[in-house]
């Protein structure tokens, strides 16, 4: 037993996500089911989220509708499955600023928000470049930027410049620059020493097939197709993540992976959403 409890909480899904968005080069291979989720981490004195989903009642909801996302559920309801209220959340680690990862910030009025400075700088650069660069800003929601501005006024926004060790004891933030987005980051969580770490990968890794290419015997990296950065950088950072977990892919937690429930205990809620219980602290009761 460690000091952290970790759950992956599905809040919506897309039944029509293009395979080519998830696997580089997989053109004309149709669509796939893609869960949309965030990760809840509980420690003895902190409640953290890795990403916060989107707000269906805001611009992000319109974007979500336009790309076939269904079944959005309010975070109060999603988190209640783990006996957490949105106002209990103390820390939010944003892996990147796409609407489905940052759009739910307004539901968490007491949380400090941690995002890489480069992520915001890159969006500023894209906007400053004007309309010919607009393909790079797909997935960005103007209301999210405004919310960050509000959070900054309330001194709840913290911009990270590279690695941040022990943002909460045992939880570290690592940059994944020029990958899925210019300023992506991922979370490394220590449990009982270095041989038992977890990596919360953000969208640098969507599914386990990004790590092994679907070949268990002779694995190879297949980066996600969707990237503002480069596929080469995606592979480099995936390899870095695998280094953190001693080449045990099961300890990498990609939130868009449908098969997480085959690796860890899970259940389906009344709303039809999956809860995956990755690990439990000694004092915590199971929610699955």
């Amino acid at each position, binding site marked *: 037993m460690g000091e952290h409890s970790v759950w992956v909480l599905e809040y919506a899904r*897309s*039944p*029509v*996500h*293009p395979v*080519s*968005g998830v696997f580089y080069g997989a*053109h*004309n291979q*149709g*669509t796939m089911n893609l869960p949309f989720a965030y990760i809840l981490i509980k420690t003895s004195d902190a409640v953290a989220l890795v990403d916060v989903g989107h707000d269906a009642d*805001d*611009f992000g909801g*319109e*974007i979500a509708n*336009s*790309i*076939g996302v269904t079944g959005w559920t309010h975070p109060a309801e999603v988190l209640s499955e783990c006996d957490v209220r949105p106002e209990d959340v103390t820390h939010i680690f944003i892996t990147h600023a*796409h*609407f*489905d*990862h940052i759009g739910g910030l307004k539901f968490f009025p007491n949380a400090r928000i941690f995002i890489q*400075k480069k992520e*915001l*700088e890159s*969006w*500023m*650069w894209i*906007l*400053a470049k*004007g309309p010919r660069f*607009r*393909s*790079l*800003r*797909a*997935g*960005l*929601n*103007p*209301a999210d*930027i*405004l919310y*960050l*501005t*509000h959070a*900054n*006024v309330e001194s709840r*926004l913290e*911009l990270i410049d590279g690695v941040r060790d022990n943002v909460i004891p045992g939880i570290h933030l690592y940059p994944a620059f020029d990958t899925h987005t210019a300023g992506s980051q991922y979370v490394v969580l220590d449990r009982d020493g270095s041989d038992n770490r977890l990596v919360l990968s953000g969208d640098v890794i969507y599914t386990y097939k990004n790590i092994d290419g679907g070949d268990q015997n002779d694995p190879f990296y297949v980066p996600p197709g*969707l990237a*503002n950065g480069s596929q080469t950088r995606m592979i480099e950072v995936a390899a870095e993540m695998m280094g953190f977990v001693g080449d045990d892919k099961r300890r990498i937690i990609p939130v868009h992976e449908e098969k997480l429930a085959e690796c860890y205990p899970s259940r389906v809620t009344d709303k039809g959403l999956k809860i995956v219980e990755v690990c439990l602290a000694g004092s915590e009761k199971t929610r699955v």
Partner: protein
Amino acid sequence: MEAHYEGRETSFACDEVASTLELQAHRKGLEQLVRDYGEVLSLFSFIHLGSSVHGLGVLTTNLEARAAELLVATMAQFKRTQAVAGFHHVRKHLGAVDCALAAVNRMVRLKTLLSDPKLLHFLSVASQDLKVASRLLGTTAFDASACCASLPLLNGTGVEENGRAFRLGS
């Protein structure tokens, strides 16, 4: 049921009625306005953020130039839509967005009021009204056509259309 207009005046004038093509064109114009105002809102939000976060203000001058340029063009386009009939409700909300962003623009140009809570107030007003206009039109505030899995790209069978491999998004 067949309508009977015997003995009645059947010709009428109504500025809310236009041809289908005109309405479609007008709608497209309004959708573009929503996106342009959305972009201006983002630009001003980043300008505000850049002014108050150490090291994030490097691009502020570029953002201000882009915001000013886009706002002038968008406001001119909005004025042109006022002469066209239809979509009164949408235009009312876009009018509120227009006023709020004009106020923000004045404050940004003065450069002395970036910490003023009024600035955030105007940005929030613009955001709220833009959201309503976006909802009424059923469109996104940013151009999401380049977003992964955009439904119009699917050919009704859940399979991507051929020849459209370059789709960026969330």
